[in-house]
C-alpha cells in the first residue's frame, strides 16, 4: 500500500517545491534525491512482498502483437519485393539510382587515378581554403595511399558524396521553407528532433528492408542521419537575415522569389555553409556504421579487421577516416568563414580556373597514360604492427587491474541499478520518470516522460529498456564527471588546451568500432567495455562545452570576484560554474544522447539489452523485435533529452 501513496507524495512535493519557498525542498537536486529514495523503498517493498501480481513486469501482450504484425510486414515485403508496384515503381528506383550513383562515382574516381584525384583535391582545396588546408588535404591523401587503403577510401568518398548530395538536395529546400514559414518550422521540428535522438544503429533495419543490402541503403541511411543540421541551420540563417534588407528589397518591388535568391540566400550563405559542414561530418561518421549493412569502403575495412581481432589494421583504417573527417571539416569550414581563401583579382579568376582545370586534366591523363589506377599496395607503411604491439603491452600491463575494475563495476553499480529499475513495478518507475520530468523541466515534460515509459512498456521490451537505461545513466555520470574536470583544466591553461584540441578531434572522429574490441580485452565481456567506449565517444563535446562555457564568463566578473578575496576554488564553484550553467546543461544533454547511441552499439561486444535486440533483428531478420527495440531506444532518448534540456527547451 505504501508504495502506492509514496510516488504521489513525491510528485506533490515536487510541484509545491517548484512554486513555493521551502528552502531545501525547493532545490531540484533534493527533490530528485527524494524520488530516488521513493524508488528504492518501492523496490525493497516489492521484494519483501515477494513480487506480488500488482508489482509485476509490464504486460507483454500488446508488444508481442505489434512485433508479430511487423514480422508479417517483413514476410510480405520479402515475398513481394520484385512484384509489388510500391517496390517496382518507387523503392527500387531509389535503391537502383543511389546504388548506381555510388558505383559510378567510384568508377569516375578510379578513372582519374590516384594522381588525378590527389591533384584535383589539393588544387581545389587551395583555391577555396588556402595553402594550409591544401597541405592537410595532401596529407590525407597520403594516409589513404600509404596505409594501403586507397580503393577503400575512394569507395567511402563516393558514398559520402552521394549521401551528402541527397541530404543537401532535400535539406536546403526544407531549411529555406522552414526559414520562411513559422508553421512549417513548427511542424518539422519534432521530426528533426526524432531523427537526431534516434541512434543511427537503430534505424538501419527498416532501411535495409526498403532499399536492400549494400550501398543504396547505406546512402539513404547516411543521408537521413546527416539531414537535420543542414535543415536547422539553413532555417536559422534565413531567419537571421536583416529584416531591413528584406523590406528594402520588397519596397523596391522585388518578388518573393527575387528576395529569396538575391537577398536572403546570399546573406545567409555563410550560415548555410556551416550547416553543410555539420552534415558532412555526420555523414563521415555514419558511413562507418553503415558497413554493418554491407556498405563497402573504410568502414568495411575496420569491420573486417575487427572480425580477426586485428586492432592494428582497424586502427589504420580508423586513421584514414579521422584524416578524411578533419580534412573535410577544414575545407568546408574555411569556405564558411572564407578567412584563408587566397585573394585573387577578379580579372585573373577565370584564367586561374581554366589553368586549374588544365592541370587536373593533365594529371588524370598522365595517371591514365601510365595506368596508375589505385595506389600500389606494395608501397605502404605498416602501422598495424606497432599498434598491435602497443595494444598487447597495454593489455599485459593493466589487464588484471582493468578486469577487476570491470567486474567490480558490473557487480556493485550496474547490476544493482539494473535490478532496481527492472525489479520495481513498472508504474512506479514511470511515475518516477514523470517526477524527474516535472522537477527539471516542468509539467509538459513530465507528461512526455510518462508517455515515453508507457510506450516502452507497450512495445514489449520493458526489461531490456531498463537494462539499457541503467547503462546509460552510469556512463553519463562518468562522462560528465570526467568532462567537467578536464574541461575546467582546459579552461585554466592555454597550453593544455592547445595540446588537447587535436586529441579531442581525433577522439571525436575515430570510429568507435576501433576501440570496442580492445575494451573487451581489458575489461572483460559485457556492458562495462561498452560503457568505457561510450565514455570515450561522448567525452570530447562535453569537454569542449565546459571549456567554452567557463572561458565565456566575462573577465570583469572574474576580476570582481578575485578582488573580493575569493579563493580559486570559490571562484570556480560560486562564480564560473554557475555562470556557465547554460553550457553545462547543454554538455549534459549532448553527453547523454551520445552515450545512448554508443551504448546501443555496445551490443556488438556483449552489452546486451536493447542494442542486442537491434543487432539480432538485423542479423536474424526479426523485424518486429528490431523495430520495437529501436523505438524503445528513441523513447528513452526522448525522455533523457527532454529532461536534461530543462525549462528552456520550448523557447530554444
Amino acid at each position, binding site marked *: 500500500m505504501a508504495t502506492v501513496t509514496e510516488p504521489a507524495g513525491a510528485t506533490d512535493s515536487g510541484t509545491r517545491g517548484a512554486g513555493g519557498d521551502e528552502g531545501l525542498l525547493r532545490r531540484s537536486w533534493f527533490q530528485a534525491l527524494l524520488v530516488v529514495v521513493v524508488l528504492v523503498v518501492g523496490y525493497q517493498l516489492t521484494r519483501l512482498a515477494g513480487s506480488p501480481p500488482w508489482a509485476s513486469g509490464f504486460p507483454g501482450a500488446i508488444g508481442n502483437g505489434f512485433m508479430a504484425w511487423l514480422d508479417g510486414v517483413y514476410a510480405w515485403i*520479402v*515475398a513481394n*519485393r*520484385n512484384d509489388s508496384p510500391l517496390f*517496382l*515503381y518507387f523503392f*527500387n528506383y531509389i535503391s*537502383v539510382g543511389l*546504388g*548506381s550513383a555510388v*558505383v*559510378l562515382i567510384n*568508377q569516375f574516381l578510379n578513372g582519374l587515378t590516384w594522381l588525378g584525384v590527389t591533384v584535383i583535391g589539393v588544387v581545389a582545396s587551395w583555391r577555396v581554403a588556402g595553402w594550409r588546408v591544401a597541405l592537410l588535404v595532401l596529407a590525407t591523401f597520403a594516409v589513404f595511399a600509404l596505409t594501403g587503403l586507397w580503393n577503400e577510401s575512394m569507395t567511402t568518398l563516393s558514398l559520402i558524396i552521394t549521401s551528402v548530395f541527397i541530404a543537401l538536395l532535400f535539406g536546403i529546400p526544407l531549411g529555406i521553407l522552414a526559414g520562411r514559414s513559422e508553421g512549417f518550422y513548427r511542424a518539422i521540428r519534432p521530426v528533426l528532433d526524432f531523427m537526431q535522438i534516434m541512434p543511427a544503429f537503430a534505424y538501419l533495419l527498416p532501411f*535495409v528492408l526498403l532499399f*536492400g*543490402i*549494400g550501398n*543504396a541503403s547505406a546512402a539513404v541511411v547516411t543521408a537521413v542521419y546527416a539531414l537535420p543540421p543542414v535543415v536547422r541551420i539553413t532555417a536559422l540563417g534565413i531567419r537571421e537575415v536583416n529584416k531591413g534588407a528584406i523590406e528594402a528589397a520588397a519596397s523596391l518591388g522585388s518578388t*518573393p522569389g527575387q528576395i529569396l535568391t538575391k537577398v536572403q540566400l546570399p546573406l545567409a550563405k555563410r550560415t548555410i555553409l556551416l550547416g553543410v559542414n555539420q552534415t558532412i561530418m555526420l555523414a563521415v561518421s555514419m558511413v562507418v556504421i553503415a*558497413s554493418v549493412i*554491407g556498405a*563497402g569502403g573504410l568502414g*568495411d575495412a575496420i*569491420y*573486417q579487421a*575487427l*572480425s*580477426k*581481432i*586485428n586492432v*592494428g*589494421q582497424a586502427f589504420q583504417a580508423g586513421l584514414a577516416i579521422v584524416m578524411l573527417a578533419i580534412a573535410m571539416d577544414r575545407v568546408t569550414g574555411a569556405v564558411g568563414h572564407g578567412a584563408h581563401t587566397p585573394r585573387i583579382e577578379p580579372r585573373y579568376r577565370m584564367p586561374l580556373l581554366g589553368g586549374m582545370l588544365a592541370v587536373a586534366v593533365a594529371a588524370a591523363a598522365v595517371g591514365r597514360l601510365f595506368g596508375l589506377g589505385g595506389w600500389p599496395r606494395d608501397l605502404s607503411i605498416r602501422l*598495424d*604492427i606497432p599498434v*598491435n604491439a602497443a595494444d598487447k603491452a597495454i593489455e599485459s600491463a593493466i*589487464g588484471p587491474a582493468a*578486469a577487476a575494475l570491470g*567486474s567490480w563495476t*558490473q*557487480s556493485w553499480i550496474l*547490476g544493482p541499478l539494473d535490478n532496481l529499475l527492472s525489479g520495481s513495478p513498472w508504474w512506479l518507475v514511470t511515475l518516477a520518470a514523470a517526477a524527474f520530468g516535472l522537477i527539471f523541466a516542468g509539467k509538459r515534460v513530465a507528461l512526455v516522460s510518462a508517455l515515453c515509459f508507457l510506450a516502452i512498456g507497450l512495445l514489449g521490451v520493458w526489461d531490456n529498456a531498463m537494462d539499457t537505461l541503467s547503462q546509460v545513466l552510469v556512463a553519463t555520470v562518468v562522462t560528465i564527471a570526467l568532462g567537467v574536470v578536464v574541461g575546467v583544466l582546459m579552461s585554466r591553461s592555454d597550453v593544455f588546451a592547445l595540446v588537447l584540441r587535436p586529441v579531442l578531434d581525433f577522439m571525436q572522429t575515430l570510429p568507435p568500432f576501433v576501440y570496442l574490441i580492445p575494451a*573487451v*580485452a581489458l575489461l572483460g*565481456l*559485457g*556492458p562495462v567495455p561498452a560503457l568505457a567506449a561510450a565514455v570515450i565517444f561522448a567525452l570530447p563535446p562535453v569537454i569542449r562545452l565546459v571549456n567554452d562555457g567557463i572561458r565565456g564568463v566575462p573577465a570583469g566578473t572574474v576580476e570582481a570576484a578575485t578582488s573580493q578575496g575569493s579563493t580559486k576554488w570559490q571562484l570556480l564553484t560560486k562564480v564560473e560554474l554557475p555562470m556557465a550553467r547554460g553550457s553545462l546543461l547543454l554538455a549534459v544533454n549532448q553527453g547523454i544522447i551520445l552515450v545512448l547511441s554508443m551504448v546501443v552499439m*555496445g*551490443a*556488438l*561486444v*556483449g*552489452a*546486451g539489452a536493447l542494442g*542486442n535486440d537491434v*543487432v*539480432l533483428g*538485423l*542479423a*536474424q*531478420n526479426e523485424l518486429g523485435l528490431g523495430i520495437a527495440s529501436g523505438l524503445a531506444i528513441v523513447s528513452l532518448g526522448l525522455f533523457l533529452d527532454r529532461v536534461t534540456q530543462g525549462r528552456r527547451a520550448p523557447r530554444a
Partner: protein
Amino acid sequence: MPRFLRRSALLRLFAAGLALVMVSSCAVRTDQIARDPNTVRIAVNGWVGYEASAEVLANILREEMGYEVQLVRVDEQPSWQALDQGVMDVIVENWGHEDLFELYGPDGNGTAVDGGPNGNEGVIGWYVPAYLAEEIPEITTLEGLKANTDLFRTAQTGERGEFLAGAPGFVSQDQGMINAFDLDLEIVYAGSEAAQITEVRRRYANQEPVLFYFYDPQWFQEEVDLVKVDFPDYHEGCDANLDDVPCDYPVYDLNKIFRTGFVEEDDYAYRFLHNWKWTNSQQNEVAQMIADQGISPPEAAEIWVNANRDVWEKWLPEGYENRG
C-alpha cells in the same frame, strides 16, 4: 490568393508528371543496379574460415581469370537477402539455413540456388578449455555439465551459469538445448565473434572456466586447446521445435549458394565457382595465416595460391583463357 493557386497548379503538374513517368517507365528491379562489368560479387560472412575461402577464390578469379571481384562483408541472413535482391552473386560457405532456402530457393522466390557442397564439413558445438576438462573430466558429459553449471557463474549472470554465445546472427539452438536438458545456464551474447574470441582468450590466459558456443573449421581452434561437450547425437527432426532440442548440433556439409541469375548466365566465373571444392585443412592453412600471423587476407590467399597451383588448376573451367 494567386500564390496559393500558383502553388497548387504546380503541385498538380508535378503529380501528373510523376504519374506519367511511372506509367511510361518500366518497373525496376533491384538487380538492375549499375555495377562494374566483369565483376563477381562474393558475400563475406563474419568468420575467418569463410574469408579464407572467399579470398582464395577472389585471387584466382582476379589473377588467373581476369575478373574484378567485390568482397562485401554482411551477416549470414542479409547475404541471402542480397542474393534475392540481385546485389550479390554467391555465398561460398553456407551453414544449413533450411528456412532461408525455403524462402528464397526454387520453392519460394526462386532467386537462390543450392550450388552443392564446397567440401568443408562444419561442426558446431559447446566447448570448454582443455584445462577445465582435465580438472573435472566429467564436465564434457551432459550429467557432469549439469552438476557443475555453478562453475560458470559471472558477475553478470548472478545465480545462473553463463553460456557464452557468439554473434546473434549465427545458427543456434542453444536455448532449446538448455531447456531440453534442464541446465541452469543463461545465454550471454558476445555480440560479435571478435568479442567472443577476445573474451575466451582473456579467460584462457587466466585459466578461468568458460563454456561457449563454437565451431570447427575455425582458426582459433589451433591457438587454444578446446574440448567439445558430448550431447546425444543429432538425428533427423530432433531440432524441429527450437524451444526444446534434446540433441547436439548436426554435422553440416557446408554448401555454396548462388544467385539464380548468376547460374543462368553460365559465365566462366560461375563454372569456376561451381567446380571449386576444398578440404577443412586447406581452408585452415589460409585462415591461420590471416588470423594468427596477421598476414592480410589478400596476401595470405596469394601465398596459398602460389604454392598450390596443382590443387586449384582442376577448378578452372575449360576454355576460360579465350574469354573475351
